[in-house]
């Protein structure tokens, strides 16, 4: 059972890291603000989500697990808000092609 | 660890801090009232501290919270502390009396910016200096340095003009660089010895790489804050651009705080590390400062920049005391002469410089300008003020019976006793140059040619008397010859 859970952790965290790397590459390579934002939000949402899911079985107690989930929720909320704001600002400055 | 009378140290620490908090809270006309009341109490308290110190003939100490060093912090009050605190109290009181009219809240207003800022920050300078003289822990001294910086910088830009804002920003950046360098030294010393208590460091410190680098960095930081040549460039615009009362505060007292920490560091915390040879470096910079500052002062067209450059020069004298004290220690002589000379120079410059800046402020208030060339005959319009300027000049030059004379005499004797005759040249040469720039102003001001200049605004006699009183004090300090000799060695360096 322990081994299976560890395996899950490895798999999920690695998948999360993949999304982070892909998102970072996207920010560096994509041409304009909106597409970069797209890459960023993917990294935030999927990356953090998968890392949190992967770490859940490793927590000592339910409270720690709850804190992890709360962190995920906060990241989702702030990233959604910030990308909205950046998107609006970008649309005001550089009209979509 | 707490000595008899130690509670007085706590009260001395809390009085200005309580003043800051109350003045901030109540504001308005209360800020000035609270300051004057607190200063009156502070003068009494300083007197009591002096009496206790003489009675016990040993430093007064107080272990805060009952925690002894190295875990806790010790307040410690010795002869050096008394010398700086007494000077500060007298000068602060004179400045407060002088500034009462200038920074009053006008009728009809509840509170004004200049009044609120001036009084709270004057109390802040007092609080900073009190911590400087009481703390015997290098990190607490860092907090004291920051108290002084945060109180001093806004005073520079109190008038809000672009040039004063620029001067204040440059001063702040110098001061911050200085504090950070000081802080690096604290990190290294703690890493090497596990304490920042000055008494414990004195027992443990050795001349190893960490301690030498720490000492160099901390000294450099403190010199930047004290504006020793060549780190002085922030001082003239900052001190010349502030309102006269604030200039007096900055030039007479604030720079003395960081100098005092140099003394604690070199003479008390790390005497095993610094050598008389190393002390030649800051003293040589001091000698350069004396000639450079005086020469530039001589070329100034306006009174306040001239007085500010004079501060650059006069700060140089203070650093000459370092090799003299260390030289005396190395030769097994008493350090009392050099210490007393240095501290008397500090007190003499503080009183004379504050009086001079305030006299310049009154001349500016009266004439609407302070161009030296156009001061012709001002002695007939503002006789008391010009007298005060002249008396302060006498103290700065070092003519008898001024404190400056006795200070230089003591320093010269210490230099000859320790075989460091070259400092005599700097001490004497500086006096001549000072005489030149003071005489230049007085010759114009006392000239009898032409009509006396008309005053643009009346100058209150009471303010002139305050300035004259302070100048008189600086001129007569030399008559109190027994005081510095008796006060300074009390529990000073080596008596831990």
């Amino acid at each position, binding site marked *: 059972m322990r081994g299976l859970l560890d395996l899950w952790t490895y798999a999920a965290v690695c998948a999360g890291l993949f999304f982070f790397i892909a998102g970072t590459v996207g920010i560096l390579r994509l041409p304009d603000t909106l597409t970069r934002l797209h890459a960023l939000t993917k990294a935030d949402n999927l990356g953090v989500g998968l890392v949190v899911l992967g770490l859940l079985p490793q927590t000592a107690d339910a409270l720690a697990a709850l804190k992890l989930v709360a962190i995920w929720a906060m990241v989702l909320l702030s990233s959604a808000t910030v990308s909205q704001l950046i998107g609006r600002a970008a649309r005001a400055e550089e009209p979509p092609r | 660890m707490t000595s008899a009378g130690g509670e007085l140290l706590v009260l001395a620490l809390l009085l200005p801090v309580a003043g800051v908090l109350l003045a901030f809270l109540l504001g308005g006309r209360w800020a000035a009232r609270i300051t004057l009341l607190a200063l009156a109490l502070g003068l009494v308290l300083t007197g009591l501290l002096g009496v206790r110190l003489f009675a016990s003939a040993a430093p007064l100490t107080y272990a805060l919270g009952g925690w002894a060093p190295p875990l806790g912090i010790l307040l410690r009050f010795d002869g050096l502390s008394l010398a700086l605190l007494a000077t500060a109290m007298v000068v602060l009181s004179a400045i407060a009396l002088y500034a009462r009219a200038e920074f009053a809240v006008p009728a009809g207003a509840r509170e004004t910016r200049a009044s609120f800022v001036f009084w709270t920050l004057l109390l802040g300078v007092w609080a900073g200096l009190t911590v400087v003289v009481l703390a015997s822990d290098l990190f607490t001294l860092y907090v004291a340095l920051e108290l002084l910086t945060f109180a001093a910088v806004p005073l520079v830009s109190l008038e809000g003009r672009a040039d004063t804002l620029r001067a204040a920003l440059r001063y*702040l950046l110098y001061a911050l*660089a200085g504090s*950070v360098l000081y802080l690096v030294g604290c*990190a290294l010393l703690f890493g090497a010895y596990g304490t920042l208590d000055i008494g414990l460091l004195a027992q443990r410190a050795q001349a190893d790489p960490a301690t030498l680098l720490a000492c160099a960095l901390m000294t450099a930081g403190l010199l930047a804050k004290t504006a020793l040549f060549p780190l002085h460039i922030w001082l*003239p615009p900052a001190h010349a651009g502030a309102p006269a009362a604030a200039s007096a505060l900055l030039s007479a007292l604030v720079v003395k705080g960081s100098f005092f920490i140099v003394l604690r560091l070199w003479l008390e915390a790390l005497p095993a590390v610094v050598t008389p040879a190393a002390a030649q470096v800051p003293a040589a910079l001091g000698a350069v400062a004396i000639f450079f500052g005086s020469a530039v002062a001589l070329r100034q067209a306006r009174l306040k920049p001239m007085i500010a450059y004079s501060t650059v020069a006069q700060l140089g004298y203070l650093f000459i005391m370092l090799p003299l004290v260390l030289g005396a220690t190395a030769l097994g002589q008493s350090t009392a002469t050099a210490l007393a000379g240095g501290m008397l120079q500090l007190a003499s410059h503080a009183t004379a410089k504050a009086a001079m800046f305030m006299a310049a402020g009154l001349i500016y208030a009266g004439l609407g300008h302070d161009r030296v060339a156009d001061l012709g005959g001002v002695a007939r319009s503002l006789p008391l003020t010009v007298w005060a300027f002249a008396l302060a000049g006498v103290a700065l030059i070092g003519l008898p019976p001024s404190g400056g004379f006795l200070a230089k005499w003591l320093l010269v004797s210490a230099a000859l006793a320790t075989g460091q005759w070259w400092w005599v040249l700097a001490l004497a040469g500086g006096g001549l140059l000072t005489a030149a720039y003071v005489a230049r102003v007085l010759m114009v001001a006392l000239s009898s040619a032409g009509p006396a200049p008309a005053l643009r605004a009346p100058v209150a006699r009471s303010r002139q008397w305050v300035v004259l009183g302070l100048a008189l004090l600086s001129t007569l300090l030399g008559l109190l010859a027994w005081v510095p000799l008796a006060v300074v060695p009390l529990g000073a360096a080596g008596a831990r």
Partner: protein
Amino acid sequence: MTTTTIYGLLGALLVGVGLYGLIVHPRPLRKILSFNVLGSGVFLLFGVVARRGAAAGFGGDPIPQAFVITGMVVAFAATALAVALLLRLAEVGGATELDEPPPAEDRAA
């Protein structure tokens, strides 16, 4: 090579980098930024000293850690004052560069 050595060397380098920026950079805002980098380097040195002193079941000596917390608050206050001065200068005087001071005789009393 240990963790404390790595961060100690990093702290030393950051002090150097920050000091250079503080002296050389012509823009006041970047001087303020450099001051913060310099400060964080100093704080890391304190952190290394604290970590090396781990004992009595604590991960580090709490005294230098407390120094750092005090220092950080003061550094923030200093940054706030410097920024306020800079913004006021931009508002009143236009130019914000701290060019060499003009000769003192030109300055107001």
